[in-house]
């Protein structure tokens, strides 16, 4: 069953460190290929911590690992660190300001246990070539 | 009044900047002169005639010149920019800056317009039969002098940032509007016949907003005053009057503080 949450993105220190260490490395995926959910939302989703989930918005879809919110509680709000995973689903509307609406995208989250979380380069490459599911 | 008819024959690879499509640029010219007016695609300068079939001739002055533009103009920018008189009819959707910094005359768009239509407008009239994009009748970036006069009518919906820094004139939207209406306004009148979302009248000093439909979220700086029975653009009814933005500075006239006024239709 899918749940609806309000997605925001932003920096984390792990995102920063792993980005500087190389976005092609697995540590970057570990840091950013995740969605932080509130315990309440985990309950609604009916999923264990560290399960892969598919996050879908009007603008795209991506598979990431669901982890418990590190800076919570924030029921109803989900957090994907800034990076290519978040950017598969964020609202690109700039309202003619140049700025996409990176924060505040309504998304659906559903369990996707057997789907892989792709590395950043592969995710973007496959996306550009139309090879993503 | 003389009429010049333009029909687009070649689509630009990117977008066509055609701020020369104005009665001001055409006035006193024959079709064979009009085709030589410059238009731009990126850094390349072209002739208007490279993209348009041109027929008819212009009047002696802008006021005596009518321009009818046809074909798919969705990648043409700046039609009617800075025009001072005359008339333009656009029979298509068209791109940004329609009638921006316009001072007089009339533009009718039988279709949609993209963002920044009527930017910094001083006078004249813009009528859009379809929808309008963001920043309709707003100020240019950084300018505290937004729409100062004239009238903009949109039959359909309008985007966000309607009438930012508006100082005068009138905007009528037949449908719904997106967020931010009359932000920083110090005058003018905005009529929204459909629904509004949020941030109406934020940082508003003075001016009037009328909403016939719903408002999702009211600004905390707007306070309900009273119900009033008035007629707005042909619609008679009872409106709830709110004043604001209470957080913003306001002038005093005859000892009374003047606020921005937001009227919401209660009962037609």
């Amino acid at each position, binding site marked *: 069953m899918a749940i609806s949450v309000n997605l925001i993105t932003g920096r984390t220190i792990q995102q920063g460190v792993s980005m500087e260490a190389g976005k092609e490395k697995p540590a970057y995926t570990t840091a950013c290929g995740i969605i932080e959910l509130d315990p309440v939302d985990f309950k609604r989703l009916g999923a264990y911590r560290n399960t892969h989930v598919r996050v879908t918005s009007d603008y795209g879809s991506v598979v990431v690992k669901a982890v418990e919110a590190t*800076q919570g*509680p924030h029921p109803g709000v989900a957090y994907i660190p800034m990076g290519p995973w978040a950017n598969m689903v964020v609202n690109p509307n700039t309202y003619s*300001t140049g700025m996409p609406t*990176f924060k505040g995208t309504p998304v659906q989250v559903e369990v996707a246990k057997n789907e892989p979380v792709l590395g950043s380069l592969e995710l973007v490459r496959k996306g550009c070539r139309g090879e993503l599911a | 009044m003389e009429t010049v008819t333009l029909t687009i024959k070649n689509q630009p690879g990117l977008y066509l900047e055609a701020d020369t499509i104005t009665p001001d640029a055409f006035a006193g010219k024959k079709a064979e002169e009009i085709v030589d007016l410059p238009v731009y695609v990126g850094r390349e300068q072209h002739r208007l005639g490279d993209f348009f079939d041109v027929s008819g001739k212009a009047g002696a002055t802008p006021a005596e010149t009518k321009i009818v533009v046809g074909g798919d103009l969705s990648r043409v920018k700046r039609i009617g920019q800075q025009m001072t008189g005359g008339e333009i009819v656009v029979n298509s959707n068209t791109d940004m800056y329609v009638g921006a910094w316009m001072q007089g005359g009339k533009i009718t768009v039988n279709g949609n317009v993209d963002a920044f239509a009527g930017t910094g407008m001083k006078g004249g009239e813009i009528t859009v039969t379809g929808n309008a994009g963001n920043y309709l009748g707003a100020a240019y970036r950084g300018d505290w002098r937004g729409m100062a006069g004239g009238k903009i009518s949109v039959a359909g919906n309008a985007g966000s940032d309607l009438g930012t820094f508006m100082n005068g004139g009138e905007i009528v939207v037949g449908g719904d509007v997106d967020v931010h209406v009359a*932000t920083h306004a110090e005058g003018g009148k905005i009529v929204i016949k459909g629904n509004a979302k949020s941030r109406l009248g934020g940082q508003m000093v003075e001016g009037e907003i009328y909403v016939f439909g719903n408002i999702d979220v009211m600004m905390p700086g707007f306070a309900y005053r009273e119900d009033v029975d008035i007629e707005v653009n042909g619609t008679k009814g009872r409106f709830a009057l709110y004043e604001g933005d209470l957080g913003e500075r306001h002038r005093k006239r005859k000892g009374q503080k003047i606020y921005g006024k937001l009227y919401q239709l209660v009962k037609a």
Partner: protein
Amino acid sequence: MTKTVTDVICPFCGTLCDDLEVVVSDDNKQLLEVYNACAIGAEKFLHSQAKDRITRPRMRQEDGSWKEISYDEAIEYTAKMLADAKKPLMYGWSSTNCEAQSVGSEIGEAVGAVMDNTATVCHGTSLIAVQDIGIPSCTLGEVKNRADRILFWGCNPAHAHPRHMSRYSIFPRGFFTGKGHASRKVIVVDPRPTDTASIADVHLQIEQGRDYELLDALRVAFKGEKLPDVVAGIPKAKIYEVAETLKSGRFAIIFFGMGVTQSIGKNHNIDAAIAVTRDLNEYTKAAIMPMRGHYNVTGSGQVWGWLFGFPYAVDLSRGFARYNPGETTSNDLLRRDEVDAVFVLGSDPGAHFPFSSVKKIYDLPSVAIDPHETPTTEVCKVHVPVAFVGVEIGGCAYRMDNVPIETRKVVDAPEGMMTDEEFLTHVLARVKELKGV
């Protein structure tokens, strides 16, 4: 043997810490240790030493594989791509020095490019707000020496600017703030109880996307006008209380970040926050400052400011500079198919733009200049690796409060690698040849 370089400037974020110590080998070939930096800054220095670092330009082949090419070939490809385009986008410019930005600007002028920097997805909307209402601000030392009210709105320095709180904002003991943290009241506004919020005196857990309303409510409260019972999820009593806390300080500072620049309303959120700051100056002293991200995004805005008059989104295509975010901004240009080539330097739009924009870059002729392998280099036709600015080459950078600092070179780049400035200088020369100027 080793030696220690002191007063090293960290080329990661806009905090631009300048007190790092870096241990290097005597021959300047190896960087061994980094002191005083945050985890991210240290990683940036250390990553320059990665054994698998790409040190030569490469070009994408038909079959999708990379082929190593020479710098000369990369210069030729880049110059031709830019010279042939009707309206190229030259994006990035934030992780490089002002010297490179200056040469890049001249290229942009010669080819009629749109120049945009990472502010476009970061503090661009702040710049719009500043153009609409101004910005009462100050240097970070004013905060350190005077501020007793610290408000973080939609920013999380504990994660994004890790040394900000200790160097400038919460903990330091300054001239008039001798008690450090104890002399300050800290307020955090954020929809999450962030790690920054955990050390604050007050956390307003705002309903996401209602910043404009809450800021307006503060202004209403300053004036003693009536508020609705709840605004943005915050009870009015709390709003009045925070308004009073701010007014009663001797020097209030508001730091703000992506929480307001990227949420709905965008520039208007900043505009309202600046209006709050203006209001506070009628009661006390107050300033406001954007928490700028890349270490020299501020510098690119300065360089373009004095050369073109605009801090980002500068359209040079008609032979003069024009500006209007919404039209001349990267994501709008890409979304609307308004550019026909993409050049990226000192940024990673592949990772940080919405995917729909990334796909457009993939579809166009494109070059990425970056020391790292990134999602951007992955989608571009040519990748040109360069020396790390601030590590392997010095140059000017502007801190988040616009203070310019000259970054230092601490270690040699791998043999034969070009710097940004060198590469751009060659491209400029070749562009001029191609254009016959």
